């Protein structure tokens, strides 16, 4: 399929279905679905049928609209009204109001900073298209980047464009994507693989889930372009089994793309072939680490191995393998469409483009946001997030999950980019952002993450297997008021040991939540140990 044919297909899709007078777009991503959006959708359809308005109104399920806390969300077009917290009972009033005055009590103000301060590249189709219709994606210029790449560009030119964009891996570590691609492209061998890491194991992160549920074709297109650039013909999507909706939509998307010749053999009539298969994760945080992920696809226990050799040279079944995260692949098509220089003009000097964050915890507006790199934490939490509810006070924001750290108030005006976050002892991570107020005990939070690491440690190396367990034991002693200052000294010593001697990223970063809370909230540790008191009133003291 050439770009011209794609355009014709997009146009015929629009023509085949005359634009209805009214269109109600309702979010059917996981967040709103669990708030009952499928029942609302049905109620609206019934209401429209009862009034015989089928030709005039269309109800369309779309991807995530972002503001999960106010779900179910819907957008009425062309009126441009957004409704929040809709129930089945609201259906008659909504249908009645079409083209007239909106239903006042349900309106979600779309001019609030939550929406206006965002910059959408990865999420540009999210909440706009039906994730189960490839035609919708094509109508939004979908697959034109792939068609262009195959028709006009050499693999090297594709890699150059990605390098020029300055895109860095969105899985957390921020490795330059162009460099990774060119390493795999240069690796010899007859077979190569492309893997999409969709094993979002970070507690408190749901960006990848949302992208897969809202715009699955975007990820497939990015993978296909990457495969062309590095010379691979087989790809795997490694998705968490805990995300059944994402898996279902991906399966649908792969089938649709294959039917149109956009995946499979001889894509767009060229000699390039690329097949994608789904592999289900089975609940192991360590499988986010690339060598563990590869072991899991090979049907083994997800245990990492020492690197080098890196997967770029020795990956799946020993062949050169490119592994990128969902969000990284989702950035590829827009970069090819608009050029690397365009992407490089967004963000900061060393962190280009945008980042999707899952904003949650003690903040008024929780949900999915996409912001340009370099935005401050204060803008994210107080403008977009709407601040702390119930008259409470901001205490810290946790970024990067179990590998990250807690950032206190004094750094709220810090720009969000890879380097700045690292400087204050945290990381970008995959993009979870949990806001905490004074009702959270920082020692308890550190214990929570350590508990996570103990249970998720694969057990292969001693520092991680034994070290994290000892650290958890010490933290438990502190939170139950039984610890001494010697225990604290031992805890600090263990942080260093686990950090510098563990085999993989899980162990190496496991002490981060402890280190960062010790750095900024040391007085809380002291209060637990010396005064036998929990300042936040969370921990139950035994004495």
């Amino acid at each position: 399929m050439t770009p011209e044919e794609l355009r014709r297909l997009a146009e015929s899709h629009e023509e085949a279905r005359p634009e209805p007078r009214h269109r109600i777009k309702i979010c059917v991503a996981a967040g709103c679905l669990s708030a009952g959006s499928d029942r609302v959708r049905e109620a609206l359809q019934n209401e429209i049928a009862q009034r015989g308005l089928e030709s005039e109104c269309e109800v369309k399920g779309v991807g995530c609209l972002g503001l999960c806390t106010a779900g179910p969300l819907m957008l009425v077009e062309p009126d441009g009204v957004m409704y929040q917290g809709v129930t089945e009972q609201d259906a008659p009033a909504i249908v009645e109001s079409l083209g007239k005055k909106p239903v006042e009590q349900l309106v979600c103000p779309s001019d609030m900073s939550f929406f206006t301060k965002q910059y959408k590249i990865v999420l540009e189709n999210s909440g706009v298209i039906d994730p189960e219709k490839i035609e919708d994606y094509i109508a939004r210029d979908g697959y034109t980047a792939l068609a262009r790449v195959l028709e006009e560009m050499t693999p090297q030119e594709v890699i150059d464009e990605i390098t020029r964009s300055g895109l860095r891996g969105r899985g957390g570590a921020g490795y330059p994507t162009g460099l990774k691609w060119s390493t795999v492209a240069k690796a010899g061998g007859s077979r190569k693989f492309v893997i999409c890491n969709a094993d979002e194991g970070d507690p408190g992160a749901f960006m990848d889930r949302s992208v897969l549920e809202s715009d699955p074709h975007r990820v497939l297109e990015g993978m296909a372009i990457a495969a062309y650039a590095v010379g691979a013909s087989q790809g795997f999507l490694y998705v968490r089994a805990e995300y059944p909706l994402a898996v279902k939509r991906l399966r649908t998307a792969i089938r649709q793309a294959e039917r149109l010749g956009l995946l499979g053999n001889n894509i767009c009539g060229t000699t390039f072939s690329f097949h994608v298969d789904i592999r289900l994760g089975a609940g192991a945080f360590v499988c986010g680490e690339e060598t563990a992920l590869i072991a899991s696809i090979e049907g083994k226990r997800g245990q990492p191995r020492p690197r080098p050799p890196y997967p770029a040279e020795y990956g799946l079944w020993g062949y050169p393998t490119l592994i990128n995260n969902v969000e990284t692949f989702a950035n590829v098509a827009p970069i090819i469409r608009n050029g690397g220089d365009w992407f490089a003009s967004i963000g900061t000097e060393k962190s280009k483009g945008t980042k999707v964050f899952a904003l949650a915890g003690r903040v008024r507006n929780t949900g999915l946001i996409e912001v340009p790199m370099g935005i401050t934490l204060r803008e994210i939490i107080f403008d977009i997030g709407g601040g702390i509810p119930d008259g409470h006070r901001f205490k810290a924001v946790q970024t990067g999950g179990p590998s990250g750290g807690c950032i206190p108030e004094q750094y709220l005006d810090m720009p969000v980019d890879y380097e700045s976050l690292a400087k204050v002892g945290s990381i970008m991570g995959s993009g979870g952002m949990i806001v905490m107020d004074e009702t959270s005990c920082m020692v308890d939070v550190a214990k929570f993450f350590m508990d996570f690491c103990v249970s998720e440690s694969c057990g292969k190396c001693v520092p991680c297997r034994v070290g994290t367990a000892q650290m958890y034991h010490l933290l438990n002693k502190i939170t139950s008021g039984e610890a001494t200052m010697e225990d604290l000294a031992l805890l600090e010593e263990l942080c260093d040991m686990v950090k510098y001697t563990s085999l993989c990223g899980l162990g190496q970063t496991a002490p981060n939540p402890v280190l960062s809370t010790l750095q900024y909230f040391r007085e809380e540790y002291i209060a637990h140990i010396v005064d036998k008191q929990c300042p936040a009133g969370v921990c139950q003291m035994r004495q």
Partner: protein
Amino acid sequence: MHFTKPSPPSDDKRWRIVEATMRRHGYDPNALIETLHSVQQTFGYLETEALQYVAKALRVPLSKVYGVATFYHFFTLKPQGEHTCVVCMGTACYIKGAPHVVAAISEKYQIQPGETTADGKLSLLTARCIGACGLAPAVVFDGEVAGKVTPEEALQRIGRWTDQ
């Protein structure tokens, strides 16, 4: 070497689903995790007989099959209760009160997370993160996600199962 495909442990028709999965992957030992997913989806858990059968059919040592089945949290070797209640323990849910929900259920039904009540009615489980952080604390009742759940609400919903 000649290999004869073993036959399923029983003539339960559900084995056909598992067989189909193995066949699709050409009985490749690499398909172990995919096959275990298929068994668990079909039978609800991984019973010993199933592990033995999969080991033979894919020519993987039973020790390795067991190793994989116990390594991943998603797999369970015990049958689940009639109803399951999965409390999300992700960071957002944790700081918004998920531990209180677990404590309330544990206390009322005398089971710890991962256990099933003696009458087999209820299994209480915890999840690492179900990715519904905007709805924290989130609880999955028999596969249906509910958001902003209080301990009282959780007990009420479970009560509807156990009272019948």
